[in-house]
């Protein structure tokens, strides 16, 4: 990556688009502090991400970030409600089970709380992932190709839900996708080509 300069305001929805290998995922990793750059800095809610150590970045993530992944990344040994409870439990917050159940009802899975990931369809798994991402009321939601593993109709449903929830919670959204239609739903669109920003619109 080179010459990446970018500012995202609270409440904004930004799509990062580009072909495979253009550096979309790398950029997302840097924004989340999962990866470290050779040079440069990322400021998150006023904090210098790479001025912190790894545990400091983790604490920041716990406070600010929610994630949605292309391959869902639900823990196979945990059922739906337990997957949603996990970030609350790790943060040591009270009432995890109730909040998780409420959130699962919000994504339309109120009847499937005790189902394991392998017994859920792809769309259902991604909705559990959405519930997990929003349950901590993050300021920033990072979504990495959330429909990449879904068929078109299911994907559209998941995207619809994600934008709805985003709007309800006034969350800032950074969405990586190669789907122009989905990107079109975001106010800003940043195009990456070979590791550089190739225009914004």
């Amino acid at each position, binding site marked *: 990556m080179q010459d990446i300069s970018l500012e995202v305001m609270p409440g904004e929805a930004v799509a990062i688009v580009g072909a495979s290998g253009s550096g979309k*995922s*790398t950029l*997302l*990793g840097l924004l*989340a502090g*999962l*990866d470290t750059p050779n040079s440069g800095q990322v400021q998150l809610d006023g904090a210098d991400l790479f001025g912190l150590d*790894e*545990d400091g970045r*983790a*604490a*920041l*993530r*716990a*406070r600010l*970030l929610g*994630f949605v*992944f*292309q*391959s869902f*990344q639900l*823990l*196979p*040994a*945990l*059922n739906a409600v*337990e997957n949603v409870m*996990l*970030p609350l*439990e*790790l*943060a040591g917050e009270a009432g995890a089970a109730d909040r998780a159940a409420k959130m699962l009802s919000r994504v339309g899975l109120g009847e499937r709380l005790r189902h*394991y990931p*392998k017994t859920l369809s*792809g769309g259902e798994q991604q909705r559990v992932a959405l519930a997990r991402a929003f349950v*901590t009321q993050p300021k920033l939601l990072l979504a*990495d190709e959330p429909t990449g*593993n879904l068929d078109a109709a299911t994907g559209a449903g998941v995207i619809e839900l994600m934008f709805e929830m985003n709007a309800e919670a006034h969350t800032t959204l950074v969405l990586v996708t190669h789907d122009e239609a989905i990107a079109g739903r975001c106010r800003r669109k940043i195009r990456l080509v070979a590791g550089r920003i190739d225009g914004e619109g």
Partner: protein
Amino acid sequence: MLRLALRMLLRDARAGELRVLALGLVLAVGGIASVAFFADRVRQALTREAHQVLGADVLMTADHAWTPEFRDEIARRGLSRAESMNFVSMARAGNETLLAAVKAVSPGYPLRGKLRIAPGLNVPDSDTDAVPPRGMVWLDERMMAALKVGQGDAIEVGRARFRVGAVLTLEPDRGVSFMNFAPRLMVRLEDLPATGLVQPGSRINYQLLAAGEREGIRQFEQWARARLGRGERIDSLENARPEVRAGLDRAQSFLGLTAMLAVVLSAVAIALGTRRYTQRHLDGYAVMRCMGASQSQLFALFTWEFLWLALAASFAGCVLGFGVQTLVAWWLAALIPGTLPPPGLSPVWQGAATGFVLLLGFALPPLLQLKEVPALRVIRRDVGPPRQGALAVYIMGLAAVFGLLLWHAGELNLASYVFGGFAAAFGLFAAIAYGALRLIGRFGRTGSVSWRYGLANLLRRPHANAVQIVAIAVGLTAILLLTTIRGDLLDAWRERLPPDAPDRFLVNIQPEQRQALSEFLERNGVERLQAFPMVRARLVAINGKPVGAEDYSEERAKRQIEREFNVTYLSALPADNKLTEGAWFGAGDLARGAVSIEHWIAERFGIRIGDTLEFLSAGRSFSAPVTSVRTLDWGSMRPNFFFITTPALLESFPASYIASFHAPAGDALLTLRLSQAFPNLTVIDVSVILRQLQFVMDQLIGAVQLVFLFALGAGVLVLYAALLATQDERTHEAAVMRALGASRAQVLAAQRAEFAVLGAIAGLLGSFGATAIGWTLATRVFQLDFIWDGWVWLAGPALGLACVVLNAWAGARAALGRPPIAALREAS
């Protein structure tokens, strides 16, 4: 954190993620605990049983009367007490007189074991708790026959007259000591003064017997040892009956070995289980990092989860172990007389400690590696997991296993053999597995599509497959070792005391009687008569320096040096003897004269190879250099000699012969006829002792077999864990093949091809491993002759093929039973 860890544990357990790990732990803990429980109780029972050969828990012997101090102390400590006096005296009945070994006993004798008596010769005998009543004596069969008396007849001993009360058929504490040559006459202690035989200067052996609960006895023995005076000694099991000792030691080794096998196998299962667990949790770990969990938080979370697991599994294992040992104890109740002492609590700690050490030894290093998992993995699949399987990761585990082996074996030798054996087997197995895979890669490129695809699969992940082959081979090694080879080892043990082991000793055979004696025995159906010349000689000087009792501080050494040794002369090394130093008599030695000496005697008297020993026999002396040191097999029931010389040296000395033979079954009167035909011979009947030994051995073997089941279970678990190891990948591959249009048959054939090769290699390695370990154990640890077993070489590959084919079938069915997309999604 603690509660979250517990919740995570329950969730993982519910999802079946911990099956192998938990089972491995439960088996290890259960195996150790049950063996420990069982060994604890059986050891106590056997020790008690073995104490019968002393007639007491502690047997104290002196050449003078014991002071009241000792007697009172026994009473003061609440232990039971009995006394006896032993000496040799003439007994007279009618015109017959005979030198009798008189034993005067107090009521209660013996404290351990029972006397058996019969109303007459060749009448069935039975146990008794009594001792001879006042005015009565009990005679053994030889004495009855020689004095020609029956029940109720009169007999004179010293100045007193007695009546014959019964035939004494068994004294549990009689043993095989060559001191007990004379036939037995047993009398009540209170009747002894009337005989007038106890005079100042009489050679009388005073015995004080004590018995009671273990701790009290231990303390009393300690107390008494500190106060022993000259001519006083305490007989322990170690020096009383070496042949019983040998059997006990061997059984304990077997038991310890079984426990260790369970530990090693469970360790393998746990290592495999942890590997699978961490691999399956890599993504979850990365996701939690994305959620903002710190490394230390996650490390603590997983560590606590594992600690909870260790706690739960240890508890389950201990319960299982206790259950099994209860079952074993119940099963053995018929065999072991009296009730088994209750088990202590220490096995619980042993089991739990084993569980914790094993789990932490194998789980912590991979957990530490988890810290290295980049969170980026969740969005970039090309960011790989940390390298697994490096030796360094398992060093802690290996150290843990070795520590446990050492702890449970209680001796460095056995622990080193087992650990070294397994370590060498692992290394060798891994090398052979890699080699075989490469060979297949080079030459196995022909055949059907499925066959080639299957082989290609093998080569695509040589590391994982080599691990799998090694694990399956180890599992099979254990199973084969525990089934086929175990039987052979136990048979070899039984062989030591075959049903036709010599059970009669003949002493004092005169040279001119040898011919007539062997003809007599041949007529009576005795097949093999082994005779050794025996010269009685005192050791008087070592390297020209005179030696005597004052040169040695050890009581036994003092006694031995003042007595005559039984020395024999032979040109060939006796079959049961093993040389530990030097060389057996060569041509030069035979011409010049030389001595071979027993190992312990050499140590006791400080004799080394090259020392010249001088002996005195019947007023003449002879001397010769020591050229070899031997160990004897006290379990062999054959005449053993501390000193063996070259024939030329001793042939001119007056010698008698000692012989041993096995009496044909059903000829109860042979001993009697033998004494009548050769009145000067001393016939020692050890058949009762031999039966006792065989009985002890049989019950030990039965018990050992039961405990083997644990190790067997662990072996099967290793197999299961090994097969699970690559199941995720295989499920995924099967789905990919299906998606690409392969038929069910093709997928199955490809997996079968892959597994057939895996199974065959692993099976052969297993056969090899089991044979090698069996051989090592037999020859190095148990000192048994190894019996080759051809079946192992068939059973190994067959088992290997069977289980992998079965697994392939089950695994492939799981993969094929659902639409490929489901399997693909799950595996992604």
